[in-house]
């Protein structure tokens, strides 16, 4: 028998590997057969069959036997698995860290996590790809997660279809949320600057915010010593959408198939505000890089006020307890663009269940456990976020004057969480911000004008949206 030479061995190995690779690129999973038409993009119709929704099982939860995968984002979730297993001993729950690359790999392998804790901003995107299980029957029969007990913000997880979010079927629930337009004040720094600190009984306009920011910013020579204002600049597009929502408008038109900046004066005005703040070095930007993040600027005393929600109060208690004790830190209602009061969560975190799950009942038990039972109560007591159920608001910390103050503002703002940010289902959650900030940096450097910046942003977004539409 002729023996295999080394050269032949290596040649055969390469061929085998190539064959394995090509075999791995097998036909894509067959899309669902379509029966009922639901209009999604303007030029395309995605016909989605109303598949039979799994009905909650009559099996007592303690008798449910299954293995499920929970993709979560924190160490807390890992601990949760242990307590969940103690309650449901026959359900084996495996925890995996939430990671976009891992999630994509699991999706590509046709083996998505059964339960995923993530941002609600991704709901339209996932719905468009028919990834989510309709949980309405589970909510209708749940003793813990009652539909009428769901806070308004849970509407981020309700949808008629991917472009109509807010009512309809329930695809998940909130883990915790915050009215993100609120602003945290450091009265001591306002006093130091000789500027009157806003009270929590009123609501500033964005013009007033800009005016105060100009008075608060502090330079020594060319060196910036204190920002005039701080906010999560990765949310510039979302704050603009909020501003437009006050006027009954949106950044996207034609059912999300087009971004509309250049032809909308109000969108231009909103972006102009944020651009001016950056150009005048009132806020961190490519001209004035932040040493940390907007919250870190606040705790380091580099800014007298920062736009963050209820949860930030708990962060301050942990980070700068001395200043909290002094009573100089407090939260005020979110600003308004046009006089209309709106304050919703930018994108609360919550739970969804994959449509491909092989154990929907077990997956539901995990979701219900984390979202509506003991873990939710424990989370509420930390004050690091507002629970998704109204009945759990009572567990939020209210012992100290500090906690009582932020609780009162939160409750007031919770009534204003009536409108949701319309996230585009055809592009990623942060796509707009990445495109916008790229051109904003060029505009701030004087390489392009403000109008060019809007034009380029709109053009590139429309290209990306079109790719997303064409892909489907």
């Amino acid at each position, binding site marked *: 028998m002729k023996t295999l030479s080394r050269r032949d061995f290596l040649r055969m190995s390469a061929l085998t590997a190539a064959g394995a690779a090509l075999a791995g690129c097998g036909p894509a999973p067959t899309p669902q057969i379509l029966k009922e038409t639901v209009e999604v993009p303007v030029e395309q119709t995605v016909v989605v069959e109303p598949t039979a929704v799994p009905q909650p099982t009559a099996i007592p939860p303690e008798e449910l036997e299954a293995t499920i995968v929970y993709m979560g984002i924190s160490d807390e979730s890992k601990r949760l698995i242990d307590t969940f297993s103690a309650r449901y001993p026959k359900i084996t729950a495996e925890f995996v860290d939430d990671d976009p690359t891992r999630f994509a790999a699991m999706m*590509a392998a046709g083996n998505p996590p059964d339960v995923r804790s993530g941002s609600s901003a991704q709901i339209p995107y996932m719905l468009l790809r028919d990834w989510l299980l309709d949980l309405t029957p589970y909510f209708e029969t749940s003793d813990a997660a009652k539909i009428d007990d769901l806070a308004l913000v849970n509407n981020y997880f309700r949808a008629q279809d991917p472009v109509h979010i807010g009512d309809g079927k329930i695809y998940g629930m909130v883990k915790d949320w915050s009215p993100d337009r609120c602003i945290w004040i450091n009265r001591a720094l306002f006093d130091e600057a000789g500027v009157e600190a806003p009270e929590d009984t009123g609501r500033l306009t964005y013009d007033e915010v800009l005016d105060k920011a100009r008075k608060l910013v502090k330079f020594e020579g060319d060196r910036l010593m204190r920002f005039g204002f701080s906010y999560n*600049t990765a949310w510039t597009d979302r704050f603009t959408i909020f501003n437009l929502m006050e006027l009954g408008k949106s950044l996207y038109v034609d059912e999300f198939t087009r971004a509309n900046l250049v032809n909308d004066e109000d969108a231009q005005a909103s972006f102009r505000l944020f651009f001016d703040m950056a150009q005048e070095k009132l806020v961190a*930007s490519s001209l004035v890089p932040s*040493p940390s993040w907007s919250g870190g600027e606040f705790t380091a005393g580099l800014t007298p006020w920062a736009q963050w929600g209820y949860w930030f109060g708990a962060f301050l208690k942990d980070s700068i307890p001395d200043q909290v004790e002094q009573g100089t830190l407090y939260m005020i209602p979110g600003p308004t663009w046009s006089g209309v009061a709106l304050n919703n969560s930018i994108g609360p975190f919550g739970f969804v269940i994959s449509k491909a799950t092989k154990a929907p009942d077990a997956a539901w038990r995990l979701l219900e456990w984390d979202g509506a039972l003991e873990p939710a109560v424990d989370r509420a007591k930390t004050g690091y976020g507002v629970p998704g159920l109204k009945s759990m608001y009572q567990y939020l910390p209210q012992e100290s004057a500090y906690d009582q103050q932020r609780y009162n503002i939160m409750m007031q703002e919770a009534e204003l969480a009536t409108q949701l940010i319309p996230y585009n289902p055809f592009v990623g959650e942060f796509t707009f911000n990445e495109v*916008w900030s790229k051109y904003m940096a060029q505009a701030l*450097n004087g*390489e392009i004008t403000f109008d060019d910046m809007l034009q380029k942003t709109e053009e590139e977004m429309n290209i*990306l949206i079109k790719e997303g539409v064409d*892909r489907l």
Partner: protein
Amino acid sequence: MSTAQPMHGQVGWRLLSSRSRRKRITFYLFISPWLIGFVALGAIPLVLGLLTSLTNYDGMDLAHLKFVGLDNYARAFADSEATFTAGRTAVWIAINTPAWLVISFLLALILNQEVRGRGIFRTLYYLPSVIPAVAAMWVWKIFLNDNFGLMAAMADLIRPGTVIPWLTKYALVSVTFVSLWGGLGLGMVVFLAGLQGIPRELEEAAVIDGAHQFQVFRHVTIPLMTPVIFFQLVISLIGGFQTFVLPLLLLGGQRDLAYGSTPPRSIYLYMVYTYHQLFVYQRFGYGTALLWILFTVVLVLTLLVFWTQRYWVYYEVETQGEGR
């Protein structure tokens, strides 16, 4: 009945065959870990990447995958941003590679001298190479912050109100400096090993023949170091094209830090642009096409460098067709 007896030659052949077979098995056993790793983690991903570059894959949705042929490649050549970032990468390599080679070689020369405490210095210079990149970038980012960093505070002591825009206007300078800080140690170690491989007798013979130090360096040390220089040049070029972590972490990458994840234009490198295409815009097909173009360019350039070695690389042992 007669039994055929093996002839002496046949016995010898069997013994040889058995030994040869054992050697063959041993060979395959020894290389199998590497081979399996290379195939599983190198060859297969390469092929999958090539196949992905021919589709419109968005990284998540296989149900709507479409074959687009060479559209992604055509797009790359028409993409002004891709061209721009390729140009910036060329500039980055033109600055960083020679600087790294020269400075690490000089460091190795200095630390090859018989000086007291040179071991400590060698350790100190090598230390940055072992610090995890992410941690190092975070520290440098705070250190170099234009207004609030340590450098700003130090400049303020000398001239109050001074701002040196390390992370904005002088981003290229900062990135080059931090890159050299992190990479010199490794280069120094390799050059040091090469220097210590130079036979002392050759240098002594040159001195005896009347050569002064610089002549010894030029006519003995440099020629004998050309194989090491060649190796360092190749890995530096390959590394330079793949530079990604440094500009992204030092100058961008945090969502709440004002400017998305796009670094300043001066240091907007090809790999950062490719990262954006893949993970921000979810254009996996286009992103992998960009990667394959980069791979091709790096391969061609490396082969070119290999071809030039016949003119300037000297090997002590003559090998056919290579060096002088």
